[in-house]
């Protein structure tokens, strides 16, 4: 593994932290009393600041510092995080992100404006709310939270110094709260030859004479809370103020002493000097919390570059092809041992394929998180209060699909808020709750994943869509169409029924892009709507883009793959069906199923096989039979995309390589059926004319 650019690592880390920060801020908007959220936002901020400074992003560090300072009063519980404050905090977060990702394009003025806003919110608030907050916050302190003096016993994990945390700095911070009487506990110090120079052996016993609350003390140790055993108890009897010498020692000595490389002397009298300080930078990388969380879950993760996974998938694809050839070769021979090896390799290849595909699977929740911000901003800009509910976050999808899904979902969610959810007055008039509701859900369904965006708005205005379609000349006035057919016009390029173009939607680009993107992923899109009750858009997506199960068929000389999920059943074309040239319908257990002759579509040469087979496929709600010469069997299909030179051919979604090394084309059944339908329509039109 080649060494990565440290700045790049910082950027990656920061982007994860931004997600944490954003999530926490948005949650805070919903649950303003959740201290845990404030803390997690703060931790993220602090890490960004620390790492930023370390990697030379000075602007980031200084801005984040200001942000942190301003936000500090929220952390202390002195002011409540209002919606306005959250919005400003989000803007500040965006600004930091811009500072990191594209420092050139940012303007200091913007940063200052954001900070001013932030400070205004933070200082204007009356501290009345604060008292309430504090009173409910610390459960530990008996008899009220404010205490005249405290007794602390600090025992750090021995590796604390290696993380770059400096206990002396923490003690110093503690001293700022009030006079401290600090006594080091030295019984943990081993003999010289057993001493690890990078370990911390000292413990501290601290008497703090300050009328501060427990939170203030906790704040000091916030970033080391996982590596610290802190015993905190209020001191009942007030002692005399701490003797000056020790206090001064702590206050003044650390700086010069800290630079000394661990003098391993057993001198209990000079405990501070013994401190083996490795790093003197106090704020280097206080990042224990996320790590600790990962440990809790007990899952070790490795960060792998996405390209490597793609490469791995390619190699596995080639392996599967080579294995298919081996199997074919083995089957044609009579050597039993080769057959055994071929079987063994087939088993290994297929489990390797599954594992590799699994490694590319990412929970869709990572995507859903991004939309919370979108909904928050849109709901504010349009002043439509919207509740955003997500479910099925742990549904896994191929990572490339997750990336492709982002834009379509943005469109759908925008549409749902802008067009779907009615304004307050309309909602009130229809007896609906003031707050609209958008549900984003993902669920597995067989070999597909269904992603739905559901709103409880006004539903589609079928009449208006129809009028618009007529106006644009897409349909003749008075044509008989089902509602479902009318709704399909929404996916027409340049089609928009919005009466005014808003900044968000109404330009008529969007839905057609959504449809195309989804179809490029071999997925489909369904719309269902109930007037006055809302619209549901369902995206049906295959689990993966790389390998599918397919049915290999032969038509004339050519071999083709039909994606197995689309196949319903295979039947033989009876002589009776064969004879009736005029009507291409099959009778499948009493149901009428139209069929297409693939030989005609592929313009195959030669004479057809005697017993033609029909593969019944389903696409959306349509069932269609495809007539082929032979059904060869199941085939692990590694999908290779067709080049741009064949982008005009829609009936094939890609190609694959068969066991004998030839290429076979994968049928796009939806397109095939659509093509056949439009052909029939054209025929009818020409017959009518």
């Amino acid at each position, binding site marked *: 593994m080649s060494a990565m650019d440290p700045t790049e690592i910082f950027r990656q880390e920061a982007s994860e932290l931004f997600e944490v920060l954003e999530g926490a801020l948005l949650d805070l908007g919903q649950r303003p009393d959740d201290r845990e959220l404030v803390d997690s936002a703060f931790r993220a901020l602090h890490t960004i600041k620390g790492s930023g400074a370390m990697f030379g992003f000075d602007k980031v560090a200084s801005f984040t510092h200001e942000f942190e300072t301003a936000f500090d009063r929220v952390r202390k519980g002195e002011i409540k995080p209002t919606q306005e404050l959250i919005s400003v905090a989000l803007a500040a977060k965006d600004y930091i992100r811009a500072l990191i990702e594209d420092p050139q394009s940012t303007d200091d003025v913007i940063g200052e404006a954001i900070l001013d806003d932030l400070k205004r919110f933070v200082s204007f608030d009356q501290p009345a709310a604060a008292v309430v907050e504090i009173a409910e916050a610390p459960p530990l302190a008996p008899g009220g939270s404010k205490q005249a003096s405290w007794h602390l016993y600090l025992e750090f994990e021995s590796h604390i110094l290696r993380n770059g945390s400096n206990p002396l700095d923490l003690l110093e911070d503690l001293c700022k709260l009030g006079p401290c009487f600090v006594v080091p506990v030295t019984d943990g110090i081993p003999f010289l030859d057993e001493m690890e120079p990078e370990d911390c052996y000292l413990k501290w016993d601290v008497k703090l004479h300050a009328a501060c609350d427990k939170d203030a003390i906790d704040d000091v140790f916030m970033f080391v809370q996982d590596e610290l055993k802190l015993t905190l108890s209020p001191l009942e009897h007030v002692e005399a103020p701490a003797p000056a010498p020790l206090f001064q020692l702590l206050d003044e000595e650390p700086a010069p002493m800290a630079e000394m490389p661990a003098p391993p002397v057993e001198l209990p009298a000079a405990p501070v000097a013994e401190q083996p300080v490795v790093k003197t930078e106090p704020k280097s990388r206080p990042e224990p919390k996320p790590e600790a969380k990962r440990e809790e879950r007990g899952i070790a993760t490795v960060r792998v570059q996405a390209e490597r996974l793609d490469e791995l998938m390619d190699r596995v694809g080639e392996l599967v092809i080579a294995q298919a050839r081996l199997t074919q070769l083995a089957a044609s021979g009579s050597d039993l041992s080769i057959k055994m090896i071929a079987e063994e390799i087939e088993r290994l290849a297929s489990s390797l394929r599954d594992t590799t595909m699994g490694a590319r699977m990412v929970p869709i929740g990572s995507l859903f998180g991004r939309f919370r911000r979108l909904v928050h901003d849109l709901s504010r800009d349009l002043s439509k209060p919207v509740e955003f509910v997500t479910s099925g976050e742990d549904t896994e999808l191929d990572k490339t699909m997750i990336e492709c899904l982002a834009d379509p979902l943005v469109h759908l969610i925008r549409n749902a808020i802008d067009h779907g959810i009615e304004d307050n007055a309309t909602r009130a008039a229809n007896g609906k709750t003031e707050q609209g509701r958008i549900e984003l859900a993902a669920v597995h369904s067989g070999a597909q994943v269904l992603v739905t965006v559901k709103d409880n708005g006004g539903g589609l205005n079928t009449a208006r869509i129809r009028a618009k379609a007529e106006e644009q000349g897409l349909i003749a006035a008075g044509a008989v169409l089902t509602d479902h057919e009318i709704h399909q016009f929404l996916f027409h390029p340049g089609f928009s029924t919005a009466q005014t173009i808003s900044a968000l939607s109404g330009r008529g680009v969007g839905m057609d892009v959504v449809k195309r993107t989804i179809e490029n992923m071999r997925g489909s899109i369904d719309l269902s709507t109930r007037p006055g009750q809302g619209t549901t858009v369902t995206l049906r997506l295959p689990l993966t883009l790389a390998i599918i199960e397919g049915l290999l068929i032969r038509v004339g000389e050519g071999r083709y793959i039909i994606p197995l999920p689309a196949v319903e059943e295979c039947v033989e074309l009876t002589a009776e069906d064969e004879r009736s040239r005029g009507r291409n319908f099959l009778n499948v257990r009493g149901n009428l199923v139209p069929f297409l002759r693939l030989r005609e579509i592929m313009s195959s040469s030669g004479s057809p096989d005697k017993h033609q087979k029909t593969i019944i496929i389903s696409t959306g709600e349509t069932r269609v039979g495809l007539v082929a010469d032979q059904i060869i069997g199941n085939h692990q299909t590694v999908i290779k995309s067709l*080049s741009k030179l*064949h982008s005009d051919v829609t*009936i094939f979604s890609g190609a694959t390589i068969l066991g004998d090394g030839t290429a076979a084309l994968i049928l796009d059944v939806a397109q095939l059926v659509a093509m056949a339908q439009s052909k029939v329509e054209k025929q009818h039109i020409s017959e009518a004319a």
Partner: protein
Amino acid sequence: MDGNLAGEHQSGAMQVVMIGLGEEKFALDAGLVREIIDPVPVTKVAGARAFVPSVINVRGNVIPLADLRIRFGMPQLDNSADTRIVVIELDFDGEPVLVGLTADKVYEVTEIAQTDVQQTPRVGMHWKPEFIRFIAKWREEFVIVPNMERILN
């Protein structure tokens, strides 16, 4: 394209792969050529444009097989012992695309000197002028340097 050509002019010579299509000789910019392979089984793509009628498998990649003879209105000969597939890499909208070309014969890799380059005559050509980058002289013969991007678009 033209900028590219100017660059080649300055350097004096251009490396080309000389291929034969029917009676004509074409000079392909050697920089485009990735490999030359023996004929492989082709897979017909129904509904594709006539000059890219099929796809082939080249080292695990499915690439289109173009037939320049159709683009230049030449008769299609059956594969002979000399038939080869020349795999070239072209740039379509900023993306590299591999394309196979059927050649009735591949002669050699050679150089065309700057002085050999002739402007495409306005008359006397029965091929679309935009398909031709320029005409060069090679061993007393006129050879066509085709504009592959245009031909395949």
